[in-house]
């Protein structure tokens, strides 16, 4: 019913979609996979009317359409749940759900809040969320917000008579396991009313949910496979263009760690973020913090990086007791931080690749504050090659790189500066398997070089596979410590048991 033919989209310097053919049938769940920068999000935005294609046709039930903006797409039954958080946090839940469509509740120019709340409750019931519709959105968890986004899109059900197409761009990346299951259950239930396009880097989820899977690479659709014929390896091969290592987490490369303690926490607490946390991080060790969202892991990372001052306890970095917490001092001690919000905290959009790479250690590329730009550039070229960063050259604006390549730039920033205490917050979030493999490879390489790594992993499997040591935290309190020698790793169940 919904069909794209030979759709093309170009950005300055990037051919993001090349003659893409794409089709969604009634009640179908279509999976969409591809490497970072393959063009998935762009394709979704074209469908959703946020971008206008440069060429090709879009038809709904045989009639050609062309959307100037998202609202027109909505009027044709197309709704989108975004990759990024897309609720407006200063509004209430109900206002978010009906944003742009308040007219139905307006009587004599006045909004009937009761009616809106009532209607919002009905929508929330669809996603099995029992919260007050008048709650301010910023007070909710990310998972709740994701479900509200779905509830919001589902208002199309009432508004549109015909069929719906709902786009889900990486909706699961912030969800916990049960929440993902709930989401999938909902999606399946809704197929009597709507078709779905599902984008995710989690291959198991895509295989689980989709009836058909499109594989994209470099702006082209390289394969379409049916659910029954789908095989992880084959798909990954198509996506990446090569075989993916079976040893996903590089366990055989895991070496025992050394004796030297890099970071030591002695019963450290930070307000209501975390309490009485103690651990030692050694050279060559990957220490993984495991917990549910909001359990305090990120705050621990930010403490080591100097962005969060603890309220009690002693933090020691490389034998030096830390008394004043600031990022500069931590960086000088060799701490590097790869934050979760890559686009806003990881890279500086608007600055080019080499400027981003040297940002944390400009003193090494300057004399008395005057930069030696030539050196910066050659350093950048080395690392672009070493990490296979996809960029035309070192002068390209980092904001224009795809997620995976941005992440590589961030890692290069710390590695090139010789940082040996690396804090990784969800380093593989939103990355495709190809890019993930690169990150895992780099983690191992850094350990071999004698770095210590504290990891907040994207998935539990990742945590188990990569780490020497696992600390489980719950509500900011230490729960349990696991040693993860290769071949003798804790099971998923062990961890989850302590997490919740």
């Amino acid at each position, binding site marked *: 019913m919904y069909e794209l033919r030979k759709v093309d989209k170009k950005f300055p310097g990037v051919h993001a979609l090349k003659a893409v053919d794409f089709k969604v049938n009634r009640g179908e769940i279509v999976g969409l996979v591809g490497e970072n920068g393959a063009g998935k999000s762009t394709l979704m935005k074209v469908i959703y009317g946020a971008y206008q294609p440069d060429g090709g046709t879009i038809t709904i039930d045989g009639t050609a359409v062309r959307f100037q903006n998202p609202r027109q797409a909505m009027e044709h039954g197309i709704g989108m749940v975004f990759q990024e958080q897309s609720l407006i946090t200063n509004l209430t839940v109900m206002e978010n759900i009906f944003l742009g469509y308040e007219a139905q509740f307006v009587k004599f120019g006045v909004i009937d809040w009761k009616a809106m709340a009532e209607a919002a409750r009905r929508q929330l019931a669809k996603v099995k969320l029992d919260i007050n519709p008048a709650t301010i959105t910023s007070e909710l968890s990310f998972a709740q917000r994701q479900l509200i986004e779905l509830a919001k899109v589902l208002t199309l059900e009432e508004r549109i008579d015909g069929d719906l197409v709902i786009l889900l761009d990486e909706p699961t990346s912030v969800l916990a396991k049960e929440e993902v299951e709930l989401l999938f259950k909902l999606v399946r239930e809704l197929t009597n009313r709507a078709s779905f396009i599902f984008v995710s880097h989690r291959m198991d989820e895509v295989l689980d949910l989709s009836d058909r899977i499109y594989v994209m690479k470099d702006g082209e659709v390289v394969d379409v496979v049916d659910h029954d014929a789908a095989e992880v390896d084959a798909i990954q091969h198509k996506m990446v263009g090569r075989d993916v290592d079976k040893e996903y987490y590089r366990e055989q490369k895991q070496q025992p760690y050394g004796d030297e303690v890099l970071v030591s926490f002695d019963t450290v607490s930070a307000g209501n973020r975390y309490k009485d946390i103690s651990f030692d991080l050694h050279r060559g060790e990957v220490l993984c913090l495991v917990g549910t969202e909001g359990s305090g892991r990120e705050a621990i990372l930010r403490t080591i990086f100097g962005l969060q001052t603890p309220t009690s306890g002693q933090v020691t970095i490389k034998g030096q007791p830390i008394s004043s917490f600031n990022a500069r001092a931590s960086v000088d001690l060799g701490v590097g*931080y790869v934050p979760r919000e890559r686009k806003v905290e990881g890279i500086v*959009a608007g*600055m080019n690749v080499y400027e981003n790479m040297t940002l944390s250690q400009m003193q090494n590329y300057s004399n008395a504050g005057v930069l030696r730009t030539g050196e910066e550039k050659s350093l950048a070229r080395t690392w672009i090659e070493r990490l296979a960063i996809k960029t035309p050259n070192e002068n390209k604006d980092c904001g224009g790189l795809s997620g995976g390549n941005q992440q590589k730039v961030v890692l290069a920033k710390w590695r090139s500066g010789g940082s040996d205490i690396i804090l990784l917050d969800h380093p593989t979030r939103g990355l495709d398997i190809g890019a993930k493999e690169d990150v895992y490879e780099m983690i191992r390489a850094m350990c071999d070089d004698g770095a210590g790594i504290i990891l907040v992993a994207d998935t539990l499997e990742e945590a188990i596979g990569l780490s020497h040591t696992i600390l489980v935290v719950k509500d900011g309190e230490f729960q349990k410590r696991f040693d993860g020698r290769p071949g003798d790793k804790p099971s998923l169940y062990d961890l989850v048991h302590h997490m919740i």
Partner: protein
Amino acid sequence: MTLETLKPYLPWITLFVLAGIVGAANPAFFNPVGLVALVADITPLFIMALGMTFAIYIGGIDLSVQQMANLVTVIATVYLAQFGIGVAFVCVIVGFLFGAISGFITTRLYVPSFVSTLAMGFVALSGAKFLSGERALSMDATLRDQSFGWMFGNTAGVPHELIIAGVLLFIAWFLQKRTTFGRALKAVGSGELAAVASGLNVDRIKILAFAISGMFAAIAGLMFSVKLSGGDANLANGFLLLAIVAVLVGGTPLTGGVGGVVNTVIGTLIVVVIRAGMVYLEIDATQQQMVFGIVLIAAIALTIDRSKLRGVVK
């Protein structure tokens, strides 16, 4: 040649188009001596705009510059006899400190620079009123010439004001383009959170940016005071909006991270041309302000590179 490739040159094109219009209507405009004088005269405003560029480049704004300059005209006049040329040093330090305080209030107390600098401007104004005894003061002519006569001479036909402007421009440009500080400024302007997460001391950088803005405002005030040979608490009035306009028209948007001091050169020249155009084209007195506003809209519509205004236009 596409619009894309033209974009970086739009401010220049706007400048030449405007100058062309004025010159076409009245060729006397292109008289080189007149042009040099015209540009030399704008030096204090230009220097102030140059400083303001730093505040805007990090995404802030400095509304205290005019009062800062007012204060400095008074300081310079009152203390010229006592310190001689050393008064310049006093002025610059005062400007730097005031700017730093604004920066401190902005970064550490979380008061938007729009408000903190406005408020610090009031403080400077009070200082100027107090110090001047609320009167217009004048400098002793011989003392002035002894200490600062060099500011307004002429070497090989080039007014010294222009040389001073050029030197300050070079310093500002060098700071912005070639130093770690300039790089840090850009990082703060384009993505403050990422700068923090890269271990930059963002607060210090921002405070410095405001301090530099204050310092340049002080230099502007000092030059103006010497030029007018006096000082009072209102002497530099009229500078503020023009300095902001000069920065923005040059193509440094309020969102920061884009543009820079060279853009401010163009912006200031555009402002000069528009203003001189009023005189050359004999715009009626009652219409001048309106014409200024309309031409300003046209100029800014031409110069700003909308693709670089990341995200939404607010």
